């Protein structure tokens, strides 16, 4: 079975500062994908960033980047220059091993609040 764990139920950051959200996972697969999703109050889940495990380079999307530590099974999300619109719940997710389709396992989520 695959588990995804987010140990920070809530985080807060001042506007323009940097914050890091943590995620650990457990899998027996040799190759897999990892995702961070954002869920604002509108409830719509939005893909923020994705990482393929066989790629050693950390993924980056504008102000969002990941620190992928494969050996430690850690996949943290760094948000730089935080903006008020980043306030949301963030989920770490990965497809369940052994499936060829996008059946996702999600972490428990981290509520991020950006303060002005």
């Amino acid at each position, binding site marked *: 079975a695959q588990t995804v764990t987010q140990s920070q139920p809530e985080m807060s950051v001042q506007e323009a500062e940097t914050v890091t959200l943590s995620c650990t996972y457990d899998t027996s697969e040799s190759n897999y994908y990892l995702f961070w999703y954002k869920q604002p109050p509108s409830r719509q889940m939005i*893909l923020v960033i*994705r990482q393929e495990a066989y790629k050693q380079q950390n993924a980056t999307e504008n102000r969002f980047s990941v620190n992928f530590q494969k050996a430690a099974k850690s996949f943290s999300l760094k948000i730089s220059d935080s903006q008020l619109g980043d306030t949301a719940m963030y*989920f770490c997710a990965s497809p369940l091993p052994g*499936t060829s*389709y*996008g059946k996702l396992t999600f972490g428990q989520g981290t509520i991020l609040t950006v303060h002005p």
Partner: protein
Amino acid sequence: GAGVSQSPSNKVTEKGKDVELRCDPISGHTALYWYRQSLGQGLEFLIYFQGNSAPDKSGLPSDRFSAERTGGSVSTLTIQRTQQEDSAVYLCASSLTEDSLTEAFFGQGTRLTVV
């Protein structure tokens, strides 16, 4: 449509009643997923459709839950004889293909409250 559309946005129903939740995926997306988001259980996979077929129904919590998809497009999740523990946000997602790397686009969900 431009995005995944779910209706109704909110639904309050009495215990024991049946409810139908609708999902309109992005046009041309062959894969469709239903998830449930509740306070106690977090986000849980319910069912996966490839076209009109449901090769994975493993997440449906009981036989009161069923889903169908017609024309490779619209999907309906039906909950019969609703219970209070069915109260949750039901999210639908679609993706162009079933490949696990293909981005899944989510709707805004239906918040179901059973009273």
